[in-house]
């Protein structure tokens, strides 16, 4: 489906000719994001520089019924930016300024295309912390972070992106520009549209400015590692840590498969005889950090840890965290198709969920390694298969369908932080139920009567 030449000409007059791409080769690189197996090119790629340009593009699209898919860095893992129905891909990376940092109000205002790392560095330069830290922070944009409600390694203590969004400037699909929330930490006037838009995955409006809350930068941070013979033991240790009133900044785990893969890949000297590895860490004042780390180490030992090490200096702490950072690279090198998911269960059921995943993997003869955020109950089961083996791809689909069902059985969810996109839309009803699905569609229609914004995703 090619774009009407008239529409193309209008797009060019809105943003300037050099900011529109429509040749086949130019749009081909935008056919996909970080999600494997999904690919569909847009008809045109448009790079707006201003809110007014975004509004004009959306008005045009609504009047001509042309699909529009907003895109930041295209690092999402749920095919949220794949233009399934073609149309316009609206890329916001030209709007990448950090507009303001207000230490007195503890907030930052930025355009949506600024990367997470840029915003965090700008805040750090003023001694402030932007807490959400998705693994993709060097690439992902803050607009994308808000639109997916991104999480990260610090979720347990600091929450996720939603806890930091104070206000948004949003262009509605029909072209109106609204500002929700603002610089206020308290504001209950009207529905909380800021929260509704956070995690809306580009289906309700296009975010053109974000106001995000900052925190004072913690003085120091440190990390420890504990090995357990099984994930069940590690799970009990997590429960004990939290039951003793310690809320660590980091509480990450690797299962046996991941430990082996990471060790083969990075040779960090991990114990490959262990069934689980637990990374725990905290930040704050040095004496508090040391106290918490010692306490967590003791609690792990009480729960039967095979070995506990607490970093004595920053460099050592970094080395320990490397194990977690290497998990995805190490697993992805085992084969050519890496499918990463992020089911989430109530914290006490973590070990149970990992058992279920292992059983599913065995049943479908798949290699699935699981790592994730133990403190949040957020797991990343990662299947690695041969991309050239269609049967294996089929088995992977079947296995993940069972894994989603298992998570729901354990009162969990199909996605903790990566989003629904096109990839998990088929499972959304299982999570939300018929009534919420119907309400979701009515909300979508209220924002986007023509149904042009990111069709084929949530709300469609």
């Amino acid at each position, binding site marked *: 489906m090619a774009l009407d030449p008239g529409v193309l000409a209008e797009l060019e007059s809105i943003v300037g000719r050099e900011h529109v*791409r429509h*040749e*086949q*080769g*130019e749009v*081909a*690189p*935008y*056919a*996909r*994001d*970080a*999600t*494997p*197996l*999904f*690919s*569909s*090119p847009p008809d045109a790629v448009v*790079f707006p520089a201003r809110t007014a340009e975004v509004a004009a593009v959306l008005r045009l699209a609504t009047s001509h019924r042309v699909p529009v898919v907003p895109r930041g*860095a*295209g*690092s999402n893992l749920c*095919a949220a930016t*794949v233009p*399934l129905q073609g149309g316009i891909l609206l*890329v916001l*990376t*030209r709007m990448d300024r950090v507009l303001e940092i207000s230490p007195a109000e503890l907030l930052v205002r930025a355009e949506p295309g600024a*990367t997470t*790392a840029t915003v965090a560095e700008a805040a750090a330069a003023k001694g402030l912390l932007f807490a959400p830290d998705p693994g*993709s922070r*060097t*690439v992902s944009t803050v607009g994308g972070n808000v639109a997916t409600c991104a999480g990260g390694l610090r979720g347990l203590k600091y929450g996720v992106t939603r806890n930091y969004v104070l206000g948004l400037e949003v262009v509605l699909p029909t072209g109106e520009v609204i500002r929700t929330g603002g610089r206020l930490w308290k504001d209950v006037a009207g529905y909380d549209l800021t929260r509704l838009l956070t995690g809306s995955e580009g289906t309700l409006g296009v975010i053109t400015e974000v106001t995000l809350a900052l925190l004072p930068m913690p003085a120091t941070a440190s990390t420890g590692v504990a090995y357990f013979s099984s994930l069940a033991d590690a799970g009990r240790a997590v429960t004990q840590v939290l039951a003793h009133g310690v809320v660590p900044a980091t509480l990450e785990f690797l299962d046996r498969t991941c430990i082996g893969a990471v060790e083969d890949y990075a040779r960090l000297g991990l114990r490959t005889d262990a069934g689980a590895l637990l990374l725990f860490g905290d930040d704050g004042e040095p004496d508090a950090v040391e106290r918490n780390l010692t306490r967590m180490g003791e609690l792990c030992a009480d729960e039967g840890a095979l070995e506990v090490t607490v970093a004595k200096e920053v460099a050592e702490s970094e080395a320990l965290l490397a194990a977690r950072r290497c998990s*995805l*690279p190490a697993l*992805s*090198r085992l084969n*050519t*198709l*890496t*499918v990463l*998911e992020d089911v989430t269960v109530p914290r006490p059921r973590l070990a149970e969920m990992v058992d279920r995943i292992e059983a599913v993997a065995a049943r479908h003869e798949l290699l699935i390694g699981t790592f994730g955020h133990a403190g949040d109950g957020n797991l990343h089961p990662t299947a690695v298969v041969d*991309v*050239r083996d*269609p049967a294996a*791809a089929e088995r*992977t*689909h079947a296995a*993940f*369908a069972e894994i989603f069902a298992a998570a729901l059985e354990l009162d969990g969810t199909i996605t903790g932080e990566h989003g629904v996109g*096109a*990839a*998990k839309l*088929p*499972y959304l009803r299982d999570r939300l139920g018929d009534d919420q699905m119907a309400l979701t569609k009515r909300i979508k229609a209220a924002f986007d009567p023509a149904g042009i914004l990111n069709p084929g995703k949530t709300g469609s």
Partner: protein
Amino acid sequence: MSAEVSPGVDAPGAAGAAARGIFPPELLDRCISCGFCLPACPTYALSKDEKSSPRGRITLMRALETGVLEEDDPTLREESSFCLGCRACEPVCPAGVQYGELLEHWRSHQWQGRHRPPLARVLTNVVVRNWLVRRLGTFRGHARTAATSPQGPHLMLGCFERALFPAVSRAARRLRPELDAPGNQGCCGALHAHNGDLELGRTMGRRLGEQLPGTIVTTAGGCAAHLAGVLGRDRVKEFSEYLARDGSASLGELRVDGRRARVALQDSCHLRNGMDVWREPRELIAAVADYVELPGAAQCCGSAGTYSLLRPKDSRRVLAPKLDQIEAAGVDYVVAVNPGCQRQLVTGLRRRRSRVRVLHLTELLAAAQDGGLPRRRLRLGARPGRRAEVPADEPAGLTAHLNDRPLPDDPGAAGAGRPDALDGSAGPDEVHRS
């Protein structure tokens, strides 16, 4: 995970996808499209367009492989040439994608016949002829020793380096007299591999490996990485790596105006990204001078092999911020570890009439060992207060034209950097008087 595999599966070889056999599947399949390479890529920084990013280029390669795009698609042509080939995308890639190798396959396919940039054809043709390479070097004597000692270690002379910067190999042999430097050695073929003739490039690399058995020591980062790819990593030692083995014992000191010299480094992309050699040159510089790390030392200077000749404008856009950094750093010298970078920096700094001099690492170390740098100063009717300096790093002879080749669309390149351009009466932009 989706319930159904989308019809437009772009992974070549994945269910139903065609394959043209241009790329080794195991290389192309590696990319997980995470985008981690985007912030590292200089061309993406310029364009902010996915097609000029490593991830986008790999998607383009996949589209070429599967036939989604025609072979003569203009974007394919443009992007295979706009890419610097700097491989900055490799160390940051979590999946271990060997982008440099993919690019070589891409260009070998894309630049067949008439699609090959004519200048690339001329350059690669020049160096493929051994006799011509040897002639080039005789304008200004590079190092050479008579008989080949079979077991090495051999000093590789490098075809462009021996012509442009013959003092580099002389300095290398002053530092390490045991290095054997036969004058009749050929070209390693890196130039060919990077410019659309991968097979010839590899054949030439293997041939050089036979000519110089045992360990090959090279002063050119680009050649080192290519040779390591062809002959195996253990056969190749870049010079700083070779020197670093036996510590920094008695390297001497380089002084300027009675104080220790301040020296910065420009990494060689292939040396750093392809061979993971970057500590060694820093340590060697720090042993003889005050080392100053440039903020963008690891980023490509825009020379990128033949790039500065094929795409002079883009090359200068990449170079400009680096020159700013060098001038802001307050250094006496900036050190290169690859002849292309050396040439790029010499030309760029000269164009700005900067006082910072460019040296190859071997030249810096030899100067420290000899207790100073031989300065060849020419005063050329300069403006009052401006001292025109033509240092020993001036490219010589025939190949000086390569340096300052006038390019029709690039007025700034004409004559800039030549001694006569330093005549203060005219700006470098209007001068070409050779």
